[in-house]
């Protein structure tokens, strides 16, 4: 019963958060100087033309009325029509979402592998210079944000040793018809590993830039938890049984030490997705964030609203899932 009540409370606060985001973005972008409609029309347009188009997009009504109309549409899945691209916002945004999700997931996997490897290395060689090196590396990696790592990677793998592509999601030369916008998953499912390789060579650098700070956080926290677990009696018991140090760390200590890290990854994953906005721009990757920046530059109010709401929805859903996952993974909380 209490679990159900908690979930209901969480859902209602989520709704309040989304409503707040909608109100803020709606009001903020309507304070923007410069009439978006006037920018759409050729220079010779008359005031009548402007007024007619304003009426078409509903900009002649008060902000409050506009919000009601927009809100009613959103609840029915209608996010309006993009001014600059003249297509339904919902189609545009959902068309780009897979690109951003794939990039974020590749980055998340990279961060977990990198961070996990660093933590295990630091634990295996604890109290040596290797552990100190792991600490320094993680500290450095954490201090520098993804934007700067992206630039460093462009210099390393785009200029100095040009082995990866520095722009776009696919090269125009790729001869492959995608049925969905989930290019990477589709190529994997169709077992076209040449295409998978092509896609990964494009997403490698943006994903790594996003992954490095998260990998550092994972390395630090997982190493700390492992250190605490390694002193527990059951680990000592496993060691006296004659298991190798690798076995003791990966099979005995790791499963117990990993829970706090998993929770943290959930929260950090939303930060990582937030980072895709500028990273996509940096690597000319055709995702949601890149589209968002163009939308702001073009004063495309319906598109901006749609993208911001989608991001907010994504963040709140991920947080909700992480909380549920935590309850599932942590048996002590299941009956609380």
């Amino acid at each position, binding site marked *: 019963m209490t679990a159900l009540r908690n979930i209901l409370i969480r859902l209602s606060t989520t709704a309040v958060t989304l409503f707040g985001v909608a109100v803020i*973005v709606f009001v903020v972008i309507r304070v923007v100087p410069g009439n978006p409609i006037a920018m759409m029309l050729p220079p010779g347009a008359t005031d009548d033309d402007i007024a007619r188009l304003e009426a078409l997009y509903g900009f002649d009504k008060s902000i409050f009325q506009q919000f009601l109309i927009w809100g009613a549409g959103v609840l029915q899945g209608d996010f309006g029509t993009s001014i600059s691209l003249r297509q339904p916002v919902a189609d545009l945004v959902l068309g780009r979402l897979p690109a951003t999700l794939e990039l974020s997931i590749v980055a998340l996997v990279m961060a977990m592998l990198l961070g996990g490897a660093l933590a295990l290395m630091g634990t295996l060689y604890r109290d040596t210079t290797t552990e100190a090196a792991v600490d320094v590396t993680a500290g450095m990696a*954490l*201090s520098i944000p993804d934007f700067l790592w992206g630039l460093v990677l462009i210099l390393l793998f785009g200029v100095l040793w040009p082995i990866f592509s520095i722009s776009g999601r696919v090269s125009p030369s790729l001869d492959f018809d995608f049925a969905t916008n989930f290019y990477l998953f589709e190529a994997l499912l169709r077992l076209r590993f040449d295409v998978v390789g092509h896609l990964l060579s494009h997403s490698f650098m943006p994903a790594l830039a996003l992954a490095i700070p998260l990998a550092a956080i994972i390395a630090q926290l997982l190493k700390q938890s492992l250190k605490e677990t390694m002193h527990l009696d059951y680990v000592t018991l496993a060691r006296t049984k004659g298991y190798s140090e690798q076995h003791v760390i990966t099979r005995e200590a790791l499963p117990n030490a990993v829970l706090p890290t998993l929770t943290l990854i959930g929260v950090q994953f939303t930060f990582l997705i937030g980072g895709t906005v500028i990273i996509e721009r940096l690597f000319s990757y055709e995702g949601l964030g890149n589209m968002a920046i163009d939308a702001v530059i073009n004063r495309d109010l319906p598109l901006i609203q749609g993208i911001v709401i989608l991001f907010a929805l994504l963040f709140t859903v991920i947080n909700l899932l992480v909380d549920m996952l935590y309850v599932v993974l942590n048996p002590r909380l299941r009956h609380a």
Partner: protein
Amino acid sequence: MRDARAEVKRPIGLRLWLSGGWIALLALAAIFAPLIAPHDPLAQDLFLGRMPPFWMDGAEPGYWLGTDSLGRDVLSRIIHGAQIAMIVALVAGTITCVIGASLGLMAGYYRGWADRVISRLVDIWMAFPPVLFAILLIAVLGPGLMSIIIAIIVIDWTRFARVIRAEALTQGAMDYVASAQVAGRTRFSTMLAEILPNVLPTVVALLTLEMGIAVIVEAILSFVNLSISTDSPTWGGMIAEGRTSVHQAWWVLVFPLVALFLTVLSFSQLGEGLKDRFDPVLR
């Protein structure tokens, strides 16, 4: 005990000196930019376009770090760019810190409706991708130094509010706070005299971190061409230009990037170092 502590102190000291040294150097460069910079950062000379740095063949004497595609001196532009970076770091960082930390302190110590309102606002803010929020605000406020500072404050106050709220909650539950109130202090003066000193190390560490973040935000906004007008050189603007010509003139990207990298690293290391210094428990 004494020996062990001396051993811990040494690397902290070195870190503080190195990072503090770089920031001090940068501050001096910013203040005396017109005197130090070898050239006018805006002076264009199309005959001197894309000259490499001094150690390479074809370098032009006097242009130590080379020139960009318009023949402007990279070193002079970095020195002048330090002005914007320092102003943004100090002003935006400090105001963000004061506003965010005060709200966090109030939420964590007074709890009740203050906490409910502030925490709900933080939740809403956390649902925005910060970079997108910043770009949106600059589009609204119009480009310029003032807009950037306002945007950073509006976006990043939650960083302080979240952490300080949590700290104030823990501190507020401690016995020394209860005894201060029994001794007749008002709640407001307890907050300032008892809670604040105990959360101060965290505030200081967050503040220097925020200064580094502010520099990055400015660079990102310059990068998407939404920062300050093109006639004041900024590191982000230089990076944006360098990114487009990276295959022809890597130095236009590398040098401002190094400056930005060292600055952000120094601010965060300074924060870590100062936190250890100020921490009453470690001290």
